[in-house]
């Protein structure tokens, strides 16, 4: 951030030799942050360079890179040993490499604090006295890595104006001047209408405060503060630390800390130049002081890197498992198909070529006798109704049984919790026996007709729906049941009032799905003597050529029925599951 740097240098053969163990250094390099022109920065710090060279006994150099990042990169890259950084510059250095530098001292203001401010200012004769007057005018930031010259104002000014810092939004234009001194000069010349720089906020405006870039500029004769007005001030920003490279030999660190700390008492004039104005002195400071201030920024960056790596690791693992699973699945498919194919007596591949012959003949015959089709539809319609009837009656009866059984089989709802396993097994068994098998047995005992078909379908459907319903029940909230229990409701009442309203849309949707399936099953059962349209179809097909038009008509009827029921139940189910939410019951 702002300011200059302070720093010192060097080490020496002397120190190396004198101190045990450590490596020696052959030169010491002090970095100076941008802000003023390079020559002025070098001049202000020349006294420090000399003292360092004397103390460490090695050649000492000053570096004044054009921008803040130059110093940060120098510290990170080992080409600069010491520098005075701003709080955000330190944070940036720390985040890039926590082991590069350590804070040693911080300049203390005349009031004993170590905070400073970003100050917005303009020329008095421009008539601008506040941010409001800056609307549509040209605004100048300093260096993009500067806390007071960019970071803090870029956050706090938009809060004050309610607009962005984009050119043309609130300000007519927003520029980067490159540094504090440039900003001051630019405002003074009228190149920008207002700008931001740093000051300790103490002392007189006329002096450019006790310390800061304005004070420096006044001392250098660049501006007369009487020509300037303050238009804005940030919240307090902690002064940045003087940092020293962690890799230096211990003795060098100790010496440089001592030199810098005593600079103020040894040579006030030198300290004035190095610390950018009047200071009470310096005080020791550690990482914690800034860690606090930049806690959010730093902990975010450092810790998210770790969590991100962990998360990608997790994803990789998950993907690997999915891939293995998919592989196993594919192998099973291939193996299974292979076995089926080799056991298929007639040879699947031989039969497949004839697969289109039969429908071909049916279609051919049906289309030749197309004019008879409407009549055939009417003829078979009663059988179709019978088939649908069997399915509907069976589904309805099965639903009622299924509701009861599923409740009895659900934890938290069951009337007799100990019997839950019993009811579950009953459902399992009912579901396990195919409707086709039950129908065959019943037809054998009772003779053909719709009744055996109905019983068979009801039996299996009760098992299937019971299982689905009990899953729905498990997802229902049990809180209403406690509420109803607390007022003394009976089990039946609790189920009807507490469970059914929650689950009925899902029940209904599953029952509809089952109804579709049952229509198909009911038609197929006709083949084995259960009556309905399946029976007619069997007759037509086994008659062979000549009655294929009838077979065609029945296929069309069945197909249409299934399509229609499927569509209707699809629409109904959508309504039930989504419709409610869009009506906004929330």
């Amino acid at each position, binding site marked *: 951030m702002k300011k200059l740097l302070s720093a010192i240098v060097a080490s020496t053969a002397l120190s190396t030799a004198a101190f045990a163990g450590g490596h020696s250094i052959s030169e010491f390099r002090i970095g100076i942050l941008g802000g003023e022109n390079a020559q002025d920065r070098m001049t202000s710090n020349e006294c420090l360079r000399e003292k360092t060279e004397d103390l460490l006994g090695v050649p000492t150099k000053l570096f004044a890179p054009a921008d803040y990042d130059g110093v940060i990169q120098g510290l990170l890259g080992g080409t600069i040993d010491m520098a005075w950084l701003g709080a955000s510059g330190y*944070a940036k250095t720390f*985040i890039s490499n926590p082991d590069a530098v350590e804070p040693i001292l911080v300049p203390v203001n005349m009031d004993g604090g170590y905070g400073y401010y970003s100050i917005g200012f303009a020329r008095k004769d421009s008539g601008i006295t506040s941010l409001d007057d800056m609307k549509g005018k040209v605004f100048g930031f300093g260096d993009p890595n500067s806390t007071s010259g960019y970071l803090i104002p870029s*956050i706090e000014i938009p809060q004050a104006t*309610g607009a*962005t810092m984009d050119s043309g939004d609130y300000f007519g234009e927003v520029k980067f001047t490159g540094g504090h001194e440039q900003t001051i000069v630019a405002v003074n010349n009228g190149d920008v209408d207002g700008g931001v720089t740093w000051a300790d906020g103490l002392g007189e405006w006329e002096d450019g405060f006790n310390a800061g870039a304005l004070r420096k500029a006044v001392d250098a004769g660049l501006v007369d503060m009487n020509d300037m007005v303050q238009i804005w001030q940030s919240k307090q920003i902690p002064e940045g630390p003087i940092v020293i490279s962690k890799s230096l030999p211990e003795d060098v660190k100790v010496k440089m800390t001592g030199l810098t700390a005593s600079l103020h008492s040894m040579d006030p004039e030198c300290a004035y130049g190095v610390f950018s104005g009047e200071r009470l002195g310096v005080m020791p400071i550690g990482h914690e002081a800034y860690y606090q201030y930049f806690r*959010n920024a730093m902990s975010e960056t450092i810790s*998210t890197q770790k*969590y991100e790596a962990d*998360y990608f690791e997790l994803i990789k693992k998950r993907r690997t498992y999915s891939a293995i699973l998919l592989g196993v699945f594919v192998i099973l498919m291939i193996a299974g198909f292979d076995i089926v194919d080799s056991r298929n007596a007639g040879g699947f591949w031989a039969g497949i070529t004839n697969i289109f012959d039969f429908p071909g003949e049916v279609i051919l015959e049906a289309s030749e006798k197309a004019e008879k089709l409407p009549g055939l539809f009417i003829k078979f319609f009663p059988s179709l109704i019978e088939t649908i009837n069997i399915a509907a009656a069976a589904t309805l009866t099965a639903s009622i049984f299924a509701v009861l059984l599923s409740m009895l089989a659900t934890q938290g709802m069951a009337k007799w919790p100990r019997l839950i396993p019993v009811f579950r097994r009953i459902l399992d068994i009912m579901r396990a026996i195919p409707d086709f098998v039950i129908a065959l047995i019943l037809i054998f005992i009772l003779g053909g007709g719709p009744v055996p078909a109905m019983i068979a379908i009801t039996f299996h459907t009760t098992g299937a729906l019971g299982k689905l319903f009990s899953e729905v029940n498990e997802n229902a909230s049990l809180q209403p049941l406690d509420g109803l229990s607390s007022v003394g409701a009976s089990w039946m009442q609790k189920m009807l009032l507490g469970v059914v309203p929650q689950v009925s849309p899902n029940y209904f949707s599953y029952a509809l799905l089952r109804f579709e399936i049952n229509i198909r099953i009911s038609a197929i059962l006709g083949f084995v003597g259960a009556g309905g349209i399946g029976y007619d179809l069997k007759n037509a097909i086994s008659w062979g050529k000549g009655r294929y038009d009838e077979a065609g008509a029945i296929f069309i009827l069945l197909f249409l029925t299934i399509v229609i029921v499927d569509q209707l139940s699809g629409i109904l189910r959508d309504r039930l599951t989504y419709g409610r939410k869009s009506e906004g019951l*929330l």
Partner: protein
Amino acid sequence: MLRYPSGKYGGIMLKINNLTKKFGSNIAVNSVSIDIEKPIMLGIIGASGAGKSTLLRMINRLESQTSGSISFDGLSVSDLNGAAKAKWQSNCAMIFQQFNLVPRMDVVSNVLHGTLNKRSTVATFFNLYPRSDIHTAIEILGRLGVAEHAAKRAEALSGGQQQRVAIARALMQDPKIILADEPIASLDPMNAQIVMETLRRIHDEDGRTVIANLHTLDTARRYCDRVIGMRNGNVVFDGTPSELTTEVARKIYGAGSDFSEAATSTEIREFNLVSV
């Protein structure tokens, strides 16, 4: 360091004009007009049934108005349909009292749901998100202080953490405006404070407008720049927190002189957990 261009969402203009919503003969929101000229944190208070949620749901277009209009930055929000409506919803994030996360999915996936509007169904099915989105999601979680839970299932988090994940999902949408319907109503006072401070930070640091339905007066006073009081569908107060006196609160809540503020208080005094 994650730096959000401050004020990027500046210069907004939300204009609500004579907005009315009827449910049958019940008038939930009655000719409400609100103008917001720059990003602020707005609190809406009022008794249960005052119409607060309905108002927010209309702004997000979860609900359509019976009459009146809403416009944002010149966009006529109340007339949008289809894709334009979905786009608006992606710009106008919503946070719910019950967090509404997918409990069985990990935290990062939940946050990534904020990008669904831009994702194809196939990518969604295979849970494939660009690396850069995952990076952003974790950064946002870090910003809200919950990055360490990134890989956990959402259901394993505390209420306050879940609500911050929900806010992260909202931020993932990069919305201009965030609507929060009683974001702290199911949280204990400490978590409530963390969540409110998080919302405030989002406003302060990003310049996003935050509109929050709140149940407690002191929360509204403490975190909002402006407060609107609703009663029976009408706006009966619109002013700064300092104008929100006990007298005004009685009017909003329709309470008698026995009304005490403490009744609505959840504040933890002398307590500052999250630095801003």
